[in-house]
Protein backbone atom coordinates (compact mmCIF):
# COMPACT_ATOMS: atom_id res chain seq x y z
CA UNK A 1 0.00 0.00 0.00
CA UNK A 2 1.48 3.33 -0.93
CA UNK A 3 1.95 6.11 1.56
CA UNK A 4 -0.77 8.31 0.05
CA UNK A 5 -3.43 5.66 0.52
CA UNK A 6 -2.27 5.03 4.02
CA UNK A 7 -2.63 8.68 5.06
CA UNK A 8 -6.07 8.79 3.44
CA UNK A 9 -7.03 5.59 5.24
CA UNK A 10 -5.85 6.97 8.55
CA UNK A 11 -7.90 10.11 7.95
CA UNK A 12 -10.97 8.00 7.15
CA UNK A 13 -10.36 5.68 10.09
CA UNK A 14 -10.04 8.57 12.50
CA UNK A 15 -13.18 10.15 11.06
CA UNK A 16 -11.39 13.39 10.16
CA UNK A 17 -12.34 12.94 6.49
CA UNK A 18 -15.50 11.20 5.35
CA UNK A 19 -15.49 9.00 2.26
CA UNK A 20 -18.13 9.86 -0.36
CA UNK A 21 -17.14 7.25 -2.94
CA UNK A 22 -15.54 9.86 -5.19
CA UNK A 23 -11.79 10.52 -5.11
CA UNK A 24 -11.04 14.02 -3.89
CA UNK A 25 -14.58 14.67 -2.62
CA UNK A 26 -14.70 14.29 1.14
CA UNK A 27 -16.74 15.25 4.14
CA UNK A 28 -14.93 16.82 7.09
CA UNK A 29 -15.40 16.13 10.79
CA UNK A 30 -16.01 18.85 13.36
CA UNK A 31 -12.44 18.46 14.60
CA UNK A 32 -11.04 18.89 11.08
CA UNK A 33 -13.17 21.99 10.53
CA UNK A 34 -12.07 23.38 13.88
CA UNK A 35 -8.41 23.13 12.84
CA UNK A 36 -9.18 25.09 9.68
CA UNK A 37 -11.13 27.71 11.63
CA UNK A 38 -8.27 28.10 14.10
CA UNK A 39 -5.68 28.35 11.34
CA UNK A 40 -7.79 31.02 9.68
CA UNK A 41 -7.73 32.96 12.94
CA UNK A 42 -3.93 32.71 12.83
CA UNK A 43 -4.05 34.13 9.29
CA UNK A 44 -6.26 36.94 10.61
CA UNK A 45 -3.74 37.60 13.37
CA UNK A 46 -1.08 38.23 10.70
CA UNK A 47 -3.15 39.88 8.00
CA UNK A 48 -5.98 41.46 9.97
CA UNK A 49 -4.24 44.75 10.65
CA UNK A 50 -3.54 45.39 6.97
CA UNK A 51 -7.11 46.58 6.54
CA UNK A 52 -8.14 44.27 3.72
CA UNK A 53 -11.74 44.44 2.55
CA UNK A 54 -13.30 41.05 3.21
CA UNK A 55 -15.63 39.52 0.65
CA UNK A 56 -17.09 36.03 0.52
CA UNK A 57 -18.44 34.56 -2.69
CA UNK A 58 -20.20 31.20 -3.03
CA UNK A 59 -18.23 28.46 -4.83
CA UNK A 60 -19.83 29.29 -8.16
CA UNK A 61 -19.05 32.25 -10.38
CA UNK A 62 -20.66 34.10 -13.28
CA UNK A 63 -19.96 32.06 -16.44
CA UNK A 64 -19.38 35.24 -18.48
CA UNK A 65 -16.68 36.32 -16.02
CA UNK A 66 -15.16 32.86 -16.15
CA UNK A 67 -15.02 33.08 -19.95
CA UNK A 68 -13.35 36.51 -19.81
CA UNK A 69 -10.79 35.20 -17.33
CA UNK A 70 -9.24 33.00 -20.02
CA UNK A 71 -9.23 30.00 -17.69
CA UNK A 72 -10.13 27.67 -20.56
CA UNK A 73 -7.01 28.78 -22.46
CA UNK A 74 -4.76 27.63 -19.66
CA UNK A 75 -6.56 25.01 -17.57
CA UNK A 76 -9.40 23.43 -19.57
CA UNK A 77 -8.76 20.10 -17.86
CA UNK A 78 -9.48 21.49 -14.39
CA UNK A 79 -12.68 23.45 -15.00
CA UNK A 80 -16.13 22.42 -13.82
CA UNK A 81 -19.29 23.87 -15.31
CA UNK A 82 -22.76 23.64 -13.79
CA UNK A 83 -25.33 22.06 -16.09
CA UNK A 84 -29.05 21.62 -15.42
CA UNK A 85 -32.12 20.05 -16.90
CA UNK A 86 -33.90 22.74 -18.91
CA UNK A 87 -36.48 20.73 -20.85
CA UNK A 88 -40.23 20.20 -20.75
CA UNK A 89 -42.47 17.26 -19.83
CA UNK A 90 -41.50 15.13 -22.83
CA UNK A 91 -37.81 15.74 -22.16
CA UNK A 92 -38.39 14.78 -18.55
CA UNK A 93 -39.90 11.47 -19.61
CA UNK A 94 -36.91 10.80 -21.85
CA UNK A 95 -34.59 11.70 -19.02
CA UNK A 96 -36.23 9.25 -16.63
CA UNK A 97 -36.29 6.50 -19.23
CA UNK A 98 -32.62 7.08 -19.93
CA UNK A 99 -31.79 6.86 -16.21
CA UNK A 100 -33.91 3.74 -15.89
CA UNK A 101 -31.64 1.90 -18.33
CA UNK A 102 -28.47 3.48 -16.91
CA UNK A 103 -28.02 5.57 -20.06
CA UNK A 104 -26.08 8.82 -20.24
CA UNK A 105 -28.82 11.07 -18.88
CA UNK A 106 -26.40 14.00 -18.48
CA UNK A 107 -25.77 14.56 -22.20
CA UNK A 108 -28.90 16.70 -22.66
CA UNK A 109 -28.21 18.89 -19.62
CA UNK A 110 -27.70 22.52 -20.57
CA UNK A 111 -24.99 24.85 -19.32
CA UNK A 112 -26.24 27.31 -16.70
CA UNK A 113 -24.81 30.77 -16.05
CA UNK A 114 -22.70 29.33 -13.25
CA UNK A 115 -19.21 27.82 -13.35
CA UNK A 116 -17.56 26.33 -10.28
CA UNK A 117 -15.02 28.78 -8.87
CA UNK A 118 -11.49 27.65 -9.75
CA UNK A 119 -9.71 30.04 -7.36
CA UNK A 120 -11.14 32.21 -4.60
CA UNK A 121 -10.03 35.46 -6.23
CA UNK A 122 -11.70 34.91 -9.63
CA UNK A 123 -15.00 36.67 -8.79
CA UNK A 124 -13.06 39.60 -7.31
CA UNK A 125 -11.51 41.16 -10.42
CA UNK A 126 -14.74 41.99 -12.29
CA UNK A 127 -16.27 43.17 -9.02
CA UNK A 128 -13.47 45.66 -8.43
CA UNK A 129 -13.31 46.71 -12.09
CA UNK A 130 -16.99 47.66 -11.93
CA UNK A 131 -16.25 50.16 -9.14
CA UNK A 132 -13.99 52.28 -11.36
CA UNK A 133 -10.45 53.36 -10.60
CA UNK A 134 -8.70 52.03 -7.55
CA UNK A 135 -8.16 54.31 -4.57
CA UNK A 136 -4.76 56.05 -4.30
CA UNK A 137 -3.47 53.50 -1.78
CA UNK A 138 -4.38 50.61 -4.09
CA UNK A 139 -6.67 47.75 -3.15
CA UNK A 140 -6.37 44.91 -0.65
CA UNK A 141 -8.99 42.17 -0.41
CA UNK A 142 -9.58 39.13 1.77
CA UNK A 143 -11.33 36.16 0.17
CA UNK A 144 -12.19 32.59 1.02
CA UNK A 145 -14.14 30.10 -1.00
CA UNK A 146 -14.51 26.48 -1.78
CA UNK A 147 -12.83 25.95 -5.17
CA UNK A 148 -13.26 23.19 -7.72
CA UNK A 149 -10.56 21.52 -9.77
CA UNK A 150 -11.24 18.40 -11.75
CA UNK A 151 -8.30 16.25 -10.78
CA UNK A 152 -9.46 13.04 -9.11
CA UNK A 153 -6.72 11.53 -6.96
CA UNK A 154 -6.28 9.31 -3.93
CA UNK A 155 -3.82 11.86 -2.55
CA UNK A 156 -5.83 13.51 0.24
CA UNK A 157 -3.87 16.70 -0.43
CA UNK A 158 -5.28 16.85 -3.97
CA UNK A 159 -9.00 17.34 -3.49
CA UNK A 160 -11.51 18.33 -6.13
CA UNK A 161 -13.44 20.63 -3.79
CA UNK A 162 -11.33 22.46 -1.26
CA UNK A 163 -11.07 25.85 0.41
CA UNK A 164 -8.68 28.58 -0.53
CA UNK A 165 -8.12 31.66 1.62
CA UNK A 166 -6.59 34.55 -0.27
CA UNK A 167 -5.37 38.06 0.05
CA UNK A 168 -5.27 39.98 -3.22
CA UNK A 169 -3.35 43.20 -3.67
CA UNK A 170 -3.80 45.72 -6.50
CA UNK A 171 -1.54 48.70 -7.10
CA UNK A 172 1.82 49.59 -8.58
CA UNK A 173 4.44 46.97 -9.34
CA UNK A 174 6.46 48.01 -6.26
CA UNK A 175 3.40 47.93 -4.02
CA UNK A 176 2.17 44.47 -5.02
CA UNK A 177 5.59 42.81 -5.11
CA UNK A 178 6.27 44.16 -1.62
CA UNK A 179 2.92 42.70 -0.51
CA UNK A 180 3.97 39.35 -1.93
CA UNK A 181 7.35 39.42 -0.16
CA UNK A 182 5.69 40.35 3.14
CA UNK A 183 3.44 37.30 2.92
CA UNK A 184 6.32 35.01 1.93
CA UNK A 185 8.05 36.08 5.15
CA UNK A 186 4.86 35.73 7.16
CA UNK A 187 4.10 32.31 5.68
CA UNK A 188 7.48 30.94 6.75
CA UNK A 189 7.01 32.36 10.25
CA UNK A 190 3.44 31.05 10.62
CA UNK A 191 4.32 27.52 9.56
CA UNK A 192 7.33 27.45 11.90
CA UNK A 193 5.00 28.44 14.75
CA UNK A 194 2.73 25.47 14.12
CA UNK A 195 5.68 23.09 13.92
CA UNK A 196 5.72 22.42 10.18
CA UNK A 197 8.89 21.96 8.12
CA UNK A 198 8.74 24.16 5.06
CA UNK A 199 10.66 24.97 1.93
CA UNK A 200 10.02 27.85 -0.44
CA UNK A 201 10.46 27.25 -4.15
CA UNK A 202 9.75 28.85 -7.49
CA UNK A 203 6.79 27.14 -9.13
CA UNK A 204 4.44 27.07 -12.09
CA UNK A 205 0.74 26.53 -12.59
CA UNK A 206 -0.44 23.28 -14.24
CA UNK A 207 -0.99 24.83 -17.68
CA UNK A 208 -2.53 22.47 -20.20
CA UNK A 209 -0.75 20.88 -23.15
CA UNK A 210 2.43 21.80 -25.03
CA UNK A 211 1.49 25.46 -25.13
CA UNK A 212 1.20 25.09 -21.38
CA UNK A 213 4.80 23.91 -21.15
CA UNK A 214 5.89 27.21 -22.55
CA UNK A 215 3.56 29.16 -20.25
CA UNK A 216 4.97 27.22 -17.30
CA UNK A 217 8.58 27.86 -18.38
CA UNK A 218 7.82 31.56 -18.83
CA UNK A 219 6.22 31.72 -15.40
CA UNK A 220 9.28 30.12 -13.82
CA UNK A 221 11.79 32.22 -15.78
CA UNK A 222 10.14 35.36 -14.47
CA UNK A 223 9.75 34.15 -10.85
CA UNK A 224 6.04 34.90 -11.00
CA UNK A 225 4.98 32.10 -8.68
CA UNK A 226 6.44 30.80 -5.46
CA UNK A 227 5.11 27.98 -3.35
CA UNK A 228 5.58 27.15 0.29
CA UNK A 229 5.95 23.39 0.39
CA UNK A 230 5.22 21.16 3.39
CA UNK A 231 5.45 17.37 3.64
CA UNK A 232 1.95 15.86 3.74
CA UNK A 233 1.94 12.47 2.05
CA UNK A 234 5.64 12.43 1.22
CA UNK A 235 8.78 14.08 2.57
CA UNK A 236 10.48 13.72 -0.81
CA UNK A 237 7.64 15.42 -2.67
CA UNK A 238 6.21 18.02 -0.31
CA UNK A 239 2.84 19.63 -1.01
CA UNK A 240 2.25 23.27 -1.93
CA UNK A 241 0.28 24.70 1.00
CA UNK A 242 0.65 28.37 0.14
CA UNK A 243 1.31 30.14 -3.14
CA UNK A 244 2.54 33.65 -3.83
CA UNK A 245 1.66 34.93 -7.25
CA UNK A 246 2.59 38.08 -9.11
CA UNK A 247 0.36 38.54 -12.17
CA UNK A 248 2.23 41.59 -13.50
CA UNK A 249 -0.40 43.73 -15.25
CA UNK A 250 -2.12 40.74 -16.90
CA UNK A 251 -5.26 40.81 -14.74
CA UNK A 252 -5.24 44.60 -14.64
CA UNK A 253 -5.27 44.77 -18.44
CA UNK A 254 -7.76 41.91 -18.82
CA UNK A 255 -10.31 43.30 -16.40
CA UNK A 256 -9.69 47.03 -16.81
CA UNK A 257 -8.30 47.59 -13.32
CA UNK A 258 -6.78 51.04 -13.23
CA UNK A 259 -4.87 53.05 -10.68
CA UNK A 260 -6.00 56.49 -9.60
CA UNK A 261 -3.73 58.04 -12.28
CA UNK A 262 -5.19 55.80 -14.98
CA UNK A 263 -2.24 53.39 -15.24
CA UNK A 264 -3.07 49.70 -15.50
CA UNK A 265 -2.88 48.10 -12.06
CA UNK A 266 -0.47 45.32 -11.21
CA UNK A 267 -1.88 42.54 -9.04
CA UNK A 268 -0.57 39.85 -6.74
CA UNK A 269 -2.20 37.29 -4.52
CA UNK A 270 -1.27 35.00 -1.69
CA UNK A 271 -3.27 31.81 -1.30
CA UNK A 272 -3.58 29.37 1.59
CA UNK A 273 -4.69 25.82 0.78
CA UNK A 274 -6.68 25.38 3.98
CA UNK A 275 -7.29 21.64 3.72
CA UNK A 276 -3.67 21.06 2.79
CA UNK A 277 -2.45 22.99 5.82
CA UNK A 278 -4.81 21.04 8.09
CA UNK A 279 -3.62 17.78 6.50
CA UNK A 280 0.01 18.81 6.99
CA UNK A 281 -0.74 19.40 10.67
CA UNK A 282 -2.41 15.99 11.06
CA UNK A 283 0.35 14.25 9.10
CA UNK A 284 3.05 15.92 11.23
CA UNK A 285 1.49 15.92 14.69
CA UNK A 286 -0.89 12.95 14.53
CA UNK A 287 -4.59 12.28 14.09
CA UNK A 288 -5.41 13.17 17.71
CA UNK A 289 -5.29 16.92 18.28
CA UNK A 290 -5.13 16.36 22.06
CA UNK A 291 -1.64 14.90 21.62
CA UNK A 292 -0.25 17.72 19.46
CA UNK A 293 2.77 19.56 20.92
CA UNK A 294 1.78 22.09 23.58
CA UNK A 295 3.34 25.06 21.74
CA UNK A 296 1.46 24.20 18.53
CA UNK A 297 -1.82 23.82 20.45
CA UNK A 298 -1.20 27.16 22.12
CA UNK A 299 -0.60 28.99 18.83
CA UNK A 300 -3.88 27.55 17.52
CA UNK A 301 -5.72 28.58 20.69
CA UNK A 302 -6.49 25.14 22.14
CA UNK A 303 -6.96 25.18 25.91
CA UNK A 304 -4.72 22.84 27.93
Amino acid at each position, binding site marked *: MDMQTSLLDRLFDSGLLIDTGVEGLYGRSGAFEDVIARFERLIDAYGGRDGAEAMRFPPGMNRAHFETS*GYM*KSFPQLAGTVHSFCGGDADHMNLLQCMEVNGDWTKDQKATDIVLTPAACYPLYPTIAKRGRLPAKGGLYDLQSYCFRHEPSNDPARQQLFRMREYVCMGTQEHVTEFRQTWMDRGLEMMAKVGLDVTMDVANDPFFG*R*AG*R*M*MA*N*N*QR*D*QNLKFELLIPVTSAAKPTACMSFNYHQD*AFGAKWGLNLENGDVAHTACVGFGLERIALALFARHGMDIATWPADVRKVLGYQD
Partner: protein
Amino acid sequence: MKQKIRDILAKHGGLPVPVDTLADDADLYAAGLSSFASVQVMLGIEEAFDVEFPDNLLNRKSFQSIAAITRAVEGLTGSAEAAE
Protein backbone atom coordinates in the same frame (compact mmCIF):
# COMPACT_ATOMS: atom_id res chain seq x y z
CA MET B 1 12.35 32.64 -43.49
CA LYS B 2 12.40 35.94 -41.62
CA GLN B 3 9.51 37.26 -43.68
CA LYS B 4 7.49 34.14 -42.92
CA ILE B 5 8.23 34.63 -39.22
CA ARG B 6 7.19 38.26 -39.47
CA ASP B 7 3.91 37.20 -41.07
CA ILE B 8 3.25 34.76 -38.23
CA LEU B 9 4.07 37.45 -35.69
CA ALA B 10 1.66 39.82 -37.37
CA LYS B 11 -1.07 37.19 -37.32
CA HIS B 12 -0.61 35.74 -33.82
CA GLY B 13 1.52 38.24 -31.90
CA GLY B 14 -1.23 40.69 -31.02
CA LEU B 15 1.40 43.43 -31.10
CA PRO B 16 0.25 47.02 -30.68
CA VAL B 17 2.74 48.14 -33.37
CA PRO B 18 3.13 46.97 -37.00
CA VAL B 19 5.69 44.17 -37.24
CA ASP B 20 7.37 46.05 -40.13
CA THR B 21 8.47 48.75 -37.69
CA LEU B 22 10.44 46.24 -35.61
CA ALA B 23 14.09 45.48 -36.26
CA ASP B 24 15.20 41.85 -36.31
CA ASP B 25 16.82 42.26 -32.92
CA ALA B 26 14.04 44.35 -31.33
CA ASP B 27 12.78 43.00 -27.98
CA LEU B 28 9.34 41.60 -28.76
CA TYR B 29 8.27 41.55 -25.12
CA ALA B 30 9.15 45.22 -24.80
CA ALA B 31 7.12 45.77 -27.98
CA GLY B 32 4.09 44.25 -26.28
CA LEU B 33 4.22 40.51 -26.96
CA SER B 34 2.22 38.89 -24.14
CA SER B 35 3.02 35.54 -22.62
CA PHE B 36 -0.07 33.98 -24.13
CA ALA B 37 0.56 35.54 -27.57
CA SER B 38 4.10 34.15 -27.55
CA VAL B 39 2.56 30.71 -27.19
CA GLN B 40 0.29 31.38 -30.16
CA VAL B 41 3.33 32.48 -32.18
CA MET B 42 5.13 29.30 -31.14
CA LEU B 43 2.21 27.14 -32.33
CA GLY B 44 1.96 29.17 -35.56
CA ILE B 45 5.64 28.65 -36.29
CA GLU B 46 5.46 24.93 -35.57
CA GLU B 47 2.64 24.63 -38.09
CA ALA B 48 4.23 26.85 -40.76
CA PHE B 49 7.67 25.22 -40.62
CA ASP B 50 6.50 21.72 -39.67
CA VAL B 51 8.75 21.62 -36.63
CA GLU B 52 8.27 20.89 -32.97
CA PHE B 53 9.97 23.00 -30.33
CA PRO B 54 11.69 20.76 -27.76
CA ASP B 55 11.26 21.56 -24.08
CA ASN B 56 14.56 23.38 -23.81
CA LEU B 57 13.42 25.91 -26.43
CA LEU B 58 9.95 26.45 -24.97
CA ASN B 59 10.86 29.63 -23.14
CA ARG B 60 10.79 33.39 -23.39
CA LYS B 61 14.31 33.63 -24.76
CA SER B 62 13.46 31.69 -27.92
CA PHE B 63 10.82 34.30 -28.77
CA GLN B 64 12.66 37.38 -27.56
CA SER B 65 13.23 38.76 -31.06
CA ILE B 66 12.71 37.92 -34.70
CA ALA B 67 16.41 37.03 -34.87
CA ALA B 68 16.05 34.67 -31.89
CA ILE B 69 13.04 32.94 -33.44
CA THR B 70 14.94 32.61 -36.71
CA ARG B 71 17.88 31.00 -34.92
CA ALA B 72 15.56 28.56 -33.17
CA VAL B 73 13.78 27.59 -36.40
CA GLU B 74 17.09 27.22 -38.25
CA GLY B 75 18.30 24.92 -35.51
CA LEU B 76 15.15 22.83 -35.77
CA THR B 77 14.99 22.63 -39.55
CA GLY B 78 18.72 22.14 -39.92
CA SER B 79 18.72 24.89 -42.50
CA ALA B 80 20.82 28.02 -42.24
CA GLU B 81 19.30 30.50 -44.60
CA ALA B 82 21.70 33.08 -43.33
CA ALA B 83 21.70 34.93 -46.61
CA GLU B 84 18.00 35.61 -46.48
